[in-house]
């Protein structure tokens, strides 16, 4: 199935790139969504089987693949609205759709890959397609954002490659040369710790560019700001999850060696710094899209804190990235409507949103409640579990510091969002504000509701899949 999927999706991307006819574009995009859904279904019903020898439908991969398949439908729908509203040349439009399809395909394949070099190859393809999306507007700022993204990602991907080389050195001591995760876990007791340590440092640093964590997070923030908002939604949800998969799968290997505590320390430091930096910028930032991107940095920091704490934290971390993907993408989708009303990204020129687009304002309010993990939202559950795991791991000082930082983030985020919702903007001429159909917000309500449902009342299969994903980790 993965073979059919990859060939089909790559040819759809090529056709979208060459095609200039609108009707055919719709058909091709529809075909792609069907193919994506089919892969998710097939993967779900064939759990734990291996396809094409480099792809395994394991629980973590299938869980994130399903998340991606759900998000891809509104992503393409909102992309269509976006491109209708902001007329772009035919060529730019074709490149945009082709890049979205290529990005989604590469991310899906990366989730399912069971070999570290295969994840690496697909991560490289995501850089290529994401750069086409960021450059969509073809102006000076977009170029700056694209250049920074491409450069940082190129260096990060080289780091991952160096890490893989060190890993193969480490594996030579175990008398094996198969770099699949299964074999690595099986041989984890024989790996050479010195090379494994170097490998972990390089691979972790490399994948943080995709995950959006300290140290390589900077390029991702610029990318999410400059890419069109529907593409930004993909970059700040499913693409970050790919970085998580890369780190997590390798972390499982390291966790089964004596280096477990050291790796937790490395991850913990990077995670705490991420939350700290997110706080600093959230207080300062005036650009709404960047604000959402920094909120993503904060959430990834929390996820990694959960991983570093261990115990229930593993479960909470995986729950958190799934829910975060739904919430953050819906906020980014909402941003396209906000921009259509005010034609500005700056908080200074935006306000009183309830008056102009009630449904959209509701999404923004609910999205804010979800993103700050206030009780009715699903993220409340996962964040609570992360804090519990930190408490159980006796990291009280760290926990208090993180809670203080989170309070500041909620204050800063709330200040901006409430201004957007209720305080009238200065010098805003509302004579020709477009009327936005409430139906356009339907998909965003759906995503937010899904996040709440999965957090508060998770179905048994969902819980089981998360438990299967963390099965190989020691307690």
């Amino acid at each position, binding site marked *: 199935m993965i073979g059919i999927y990859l060939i089909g999706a790559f040819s759809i991307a090529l056709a979208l790139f060459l095609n200039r006819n609108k009707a055919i574009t719709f058909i091709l995009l529809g075909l792609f969504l069907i193919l994506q859904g089919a892969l998710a279904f097939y993967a779900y019903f064939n759990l734990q089987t291996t396809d094409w020898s480099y792809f395994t439908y394991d629980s973590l991969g299938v869980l994130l693949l399903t998340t991606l398949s759900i998000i891809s439908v509104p992503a393409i729908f909102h992309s269509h609205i976006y491109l209708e509203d902001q007329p772009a040349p035919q060529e730019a439009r074709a490149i945009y759709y082709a890049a979205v399809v290529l990005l989604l395909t590469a991310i899906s394949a990366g989730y399912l890959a069971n070999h570290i*070099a295969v994840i*690496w*190859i697909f991560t*490289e393809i995501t*850089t*290529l397609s994401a*750069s086409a999306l960021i*450059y969509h507007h073809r102006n*000076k*700022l977009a*170029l*700056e*954002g*694209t*250049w*920074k993204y*491409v*450069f940082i990602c*190129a*260096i990060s*991907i*080289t780091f991952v*490659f*160096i890490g*893989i*080389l*060190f890993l*193969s*050195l480490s594996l*030579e*001591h175990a008398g094996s*040369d198969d770099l699949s995760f299964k074999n690595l876990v099986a041989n984890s007791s024989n790996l*050479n710790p*010195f*090379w494994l340590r170097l490998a972990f440092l390089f691979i972790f640093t490399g994948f943080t560019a995709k995950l959006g964590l300290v140290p390589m997070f900077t390029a991702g923030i*610029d990318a999410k*700001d*400059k890419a069109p908002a529907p593409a930004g939604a993909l970059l700040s949800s499913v693409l970050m999850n790919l970085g998580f998969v890369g780190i997590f799968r390798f972390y499982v290997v390291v966790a089964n060696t004596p280096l477990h505590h050291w790796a937790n320390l490395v991850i913990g430091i990077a995670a705490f710094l991420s939350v700290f930096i997110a706080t600093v*910028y959230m207080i*300062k*930032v*005036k*650009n709404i899209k*960047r604000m959402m991107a920094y909120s993503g940095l904060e959430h990834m920091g929390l996820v990694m804190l959960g991983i570093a704490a261990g115990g229930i934290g593993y479960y909470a971390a995986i729950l958190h990235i799934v829910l975060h993907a739904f919430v953050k993408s819906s906020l980014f989708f909402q941003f396209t409507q906000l921009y259509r009303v005010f034609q500005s990204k700056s908080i200074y020129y935006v306000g009183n949103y309830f008056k102009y687009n009630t449904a959209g304002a509701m999404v923004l309010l609910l999205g804010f409640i979800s993103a700050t993990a206030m009780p009715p939202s699903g993220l409340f559950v996962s964040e609570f579990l992360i804090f519990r795991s930190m408490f159980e791991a006796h990291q009280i000082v760290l926990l208090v510091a993180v809670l203080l930082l989170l309070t500041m983030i909620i204050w800063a985020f709330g200040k901006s969002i409430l201004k957007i919702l209720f305080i009238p903007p200065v010098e805003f001429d509302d004579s020709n504000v477009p009327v936005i159909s409430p139906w356009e917000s339907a998909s965003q309500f759906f995503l937010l509701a899904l996040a709440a449902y999965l957090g508060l009342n998770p179905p048994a299969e969902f819980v089981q899949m998360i438990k299967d994903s963390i099965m190989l980790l020691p307690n």
Partner: protein
Amino acid sequence: MIDVLLITFIITLFYMAIANRMLTYLKVLAFQGVLLFVVVFLQLKEINPVNLALILLETIVFKSVAVPLFMAYVLKRNNITRESEPFLPNFVSLIITTAIVVVTILLANQVKDTHLDKIFFVVALSSLFTGLYFIATRRKIITHVIGYLIIENGVFVLSLAVGNEMPMLVNLGIMLDIFASVLILGIFLNKIGDVFKDIDVNQLSNLKDY
């Protein structure tokens, strides 16, 4: 013989640290490509036509002909000045590069491993850090790309140290890496030349948070 070549490789790093003109950088990069080819050639246990063709493509065609020529074209097309304009004087650069090499030698002496030839490790790590140092201290965007290419050469040396028989996957990985990165970097570098008057990192600071 391989040791001599690898030491020559390190000397090229020193030379780059004190070189002033952009074209010199490109020539040194091309020379590094040739050095890498000879190293790989001497390391080969058996001559397999496919493998040889791939290595030839990777080192000679790509690293020493195509990339430097393309970069020279970019230089010329965008009227980039020929000076490299480092933030730090060349003397300091030379000292820092020397320090990097010394530190990596000390680090390599800590490693007790029969699977690894130490000199490869030293050369790989020193070119990695020299490349990063180049990126951090040069003003022009094109020198960032050159720093990146130095890192790539270091990674290539490391991959030689790791897999003597060079598994196909590693080989293909390197190809993909060079191809994709240089292609995108090159294309955008060209575009940047069109949009910004003088290619200088200080102009790339418009994306801010306030």
